[in-house]
């Protein structure tokens, strides 16, 4: 019945699909070339390392959001976790004199505590969204506000700068000539790429995001997987907070604030669909890089602060169009 000829388009189509993760690569190449012409500093190893280091923390949020988006959900509260988890962890360990809560847990616990707080926020989100079947968008929007309040409240909006050493280490250390945060983000992205490609649970995210009923019918433990993804997301956001804390040397009340839009922008221009089931971690990574390079270039060029948003937004639109044209499919 189906003639063999009908099958021929499959092969080029597949190649295209592979490429679809990498539609931003030409954009990145273009940015590198244009940047090199505009500023001699741009293409130096030092500057590019800076870009990577600057994007390390936010890239973890993009990783988290990409996982959540692929499984068809949504998490806005990640940005508040970035500041709140480290802040609360620090308050639990430092003495009252340094602004602490007077609980005085051992300082070595600060990092595990921070990650635990992130995981707990993710778990709570997951609980409301999965068990209560509430809208993910609005739950995590409310949580964005609440979690930020739980940062402002106990710190009274003050910056915490007397931090345990361990809290500062990761964000500041240099391993084998590169900042540790680059290694960490790199390793996690590699794990994400591999996990989503080669693990059953990774593949199940695509199934859940693509057709949740079908996933359930195929025996995937949908609720458990989704919950896990939210917890992982919160944990990654807390880790992003740790890296950022080390980079900045303190925890300000504005840490993470307004990151989430950029996070979505990076994920979506990188090919992750807001409708779930589509996109790759590698694509999301290219999205992060584009945004980092554009920001760096705007800084180097000293574009006036007033007009920066216009230039910046326009470049995002262009990246979007290129990925649309290269990808060939309507976006959603």
């Amino acid at each position, binding site marked *: 019945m189906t003639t063999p000829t009908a099958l021929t388009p499959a092969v080029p189509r597949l190649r295209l699909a592979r490429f679809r993760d990498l539609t931003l690569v030409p954009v990145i190449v273009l940015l590198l070339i244009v940047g090199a012409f505009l500023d001699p500093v741009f293409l130096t190893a030092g500057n590019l390392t800076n870009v990577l280091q600057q994007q390390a923390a936010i890239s973890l949020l993009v990783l988290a959001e990409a996982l959540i988006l692929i499984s068809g959900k949504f998490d806005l509260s990640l940005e508040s976790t970035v500041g709140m988890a480290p802040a609360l962890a620090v308050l639990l360990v430092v003495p009252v004199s340094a602004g602490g809560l007077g609980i005085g847990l051992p300082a070595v616990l600060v990092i595990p505590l921070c990650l635990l707080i992130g995981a707990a926020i993710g778990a709570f989100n997951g609980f409301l969204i999965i068990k209560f079947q509430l809208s993910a968008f609005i739950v995590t929007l409310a949580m964005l506000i609440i979690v930020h309040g739980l940062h402002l409240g106990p710190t009274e909006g003050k910056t915490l700068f007397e931090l345990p050493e361990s809290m500062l280490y990761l964000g500041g250390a240099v391993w084998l000539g590169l900042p540790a945060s680059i290694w960490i983000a790199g390793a996690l992205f590699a794990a994400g790429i591999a996990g989503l490609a080669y693990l059953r649970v990774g593949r199940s995210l695509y199934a859940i995001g693509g057709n949740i009923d*079908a996933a359930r019918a195929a025996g995937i433990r949908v609720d458990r997987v989704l919950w896990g993804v939210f917890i992982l997301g919160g944990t990654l956001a807390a880790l992003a907070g740790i890296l950022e804390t080390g980079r900045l040397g303190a925890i300000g009340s504005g840490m993470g604030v307004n990151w989430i839009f950029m996070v979505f922008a990076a994920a979506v221009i990188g090919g992750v669909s807001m409708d779930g089931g589509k996109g790759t971690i590698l694509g999301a990574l290219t999205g992060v890089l584009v945004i980092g390079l554009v920001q760096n270039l705007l800084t180097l060029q000293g574009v006036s602060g007033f007009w920066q948003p216009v230039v910046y937004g326009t470049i995002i639109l262009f990246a979007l169009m290129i990925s649309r044209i290269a990808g060939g499919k309507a976006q959603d």
Partner: protein
Amino acid sequence: MTYHVEARNVVKRFGPTTALDGAGISIAEGETHALVGRNGAGKSTLVSILTGLQRPDEGEVRFSGEPAPALGDRDAWRQRVACVYQKSTIIPALTVAENLFLNRQTEGRLINWRALRARARELLDTYEVDVDPQALAGDLGVEQRQLVEIARALSFGARFIILDEPTARLDGPAIERLFDRMRALRRQGVTMMYISHHLDEVYEICQSVTVFRDARHIMTAPVADLPHDELVDAMTGEATAAYQARARTPREAVVLAASGLSLAGRYQDVELSVRSGEVVGLAGSGSSGKVSLAETLVGLRRADTGAVTVNGRAVRPGDVPAALAAGLGFVPEDRHHQGFVPLLSVAENGTMSIAHKLGRLGAVSPARRRARAVRMIQDLDIKTEGPDQPVGDLSGGNAQKVVFARALADDPDALVVINPTAGVDVKAKQALLGAVEDAADRGAGAVLVSDELDDLRICDRVLVMFHGRVVKDVPRGWSDHELVAVMEGIEE
């Protein structure tokens, strides 16, 4: 005796609807058991209960005498039962290979994609499904997707397999291959539950049959000593005669015509003219281009060359509103995809394309809409709580009737219907075919695209397409064998 599968006194309610009201089924080991009933009788609901997707409000399910596993224990369910659901469970963004082995891509820890593809290739070959395992499932046609679903369900090695209307989207040869497969499985002792609205299929491969009506169990009997009429009567609850195609004499006026129509990769050089009062069938095997052609006639596609005229006037190509305004009515191929808006009511879906006639100055009068809808519900015998029920809550066949009702809403001069009876029960099928014939009797011309030979019997002539070309114009009075031969390109 212990049955392989048993459901007893199952009650399932959805809000005000009782989908199952103390119904049950008992299937002996190794038999192929048919479940039949009208649209909305509760068949698919029983399927979701037998596969552990939904919990019955009352009643119990047993496998080989053992109580069914807990709802959360998906693995236990999957060992006991595999299923081709009525609703697609294909994930469009994933490849065919992955869809086939969803959640069982590997025994080990890491997925070996090469091995997975090979397994998929092998599985597809076994079932003679000719698709590339690496293609994205979303790029497949309706029929190919269905074949992938079937191949997946049959490949689990489960001892009990449910097939909920697997043939609704398949053409003749594909159905034959499926039946060969099912017979082989039966020889291996596999138990099957088979749901279909094609009763001759029931007689062909099932040993016993259970009839549901209005959410209740009506009867269970061996197929062999059950006359066809009695089965239909059990389903409908009244004496029902077989459908008789009517005789007509088409008038002179051409209401719908296409000339020199070509669309690259789909069909070439199509000439077509439908006269007032004439029903023209469009037949062809899979991928013959018949659906694309029909979609072009109604403006869903734009042809590369050629023109479509309605009542002698050219219609702007690729413009559905223009086609509707010119006097067309149509039923799209896939009701879920293009047919209805699930959240909107029966009334709104049914009157969507005539909304401009239900009020002045851009307004729509809810009262008039309701009145129209009540008439539609009565005319086509739609089983619904009322005009305000969302179409998404209707059973498949009833949703199809709503889509049909909309096509007829404007008393179209020309009617284009694509697979109109897909998933529709015997009685409904009669109603829908009757509606096409009524329209023709009123003076409309109709194009009926179908894979079902029974549907095509009401046509005054059948155009057969093969590889994108109209190869033969067969007048009324053909035999199944004759027509199939043309469709398969065996006979010119």
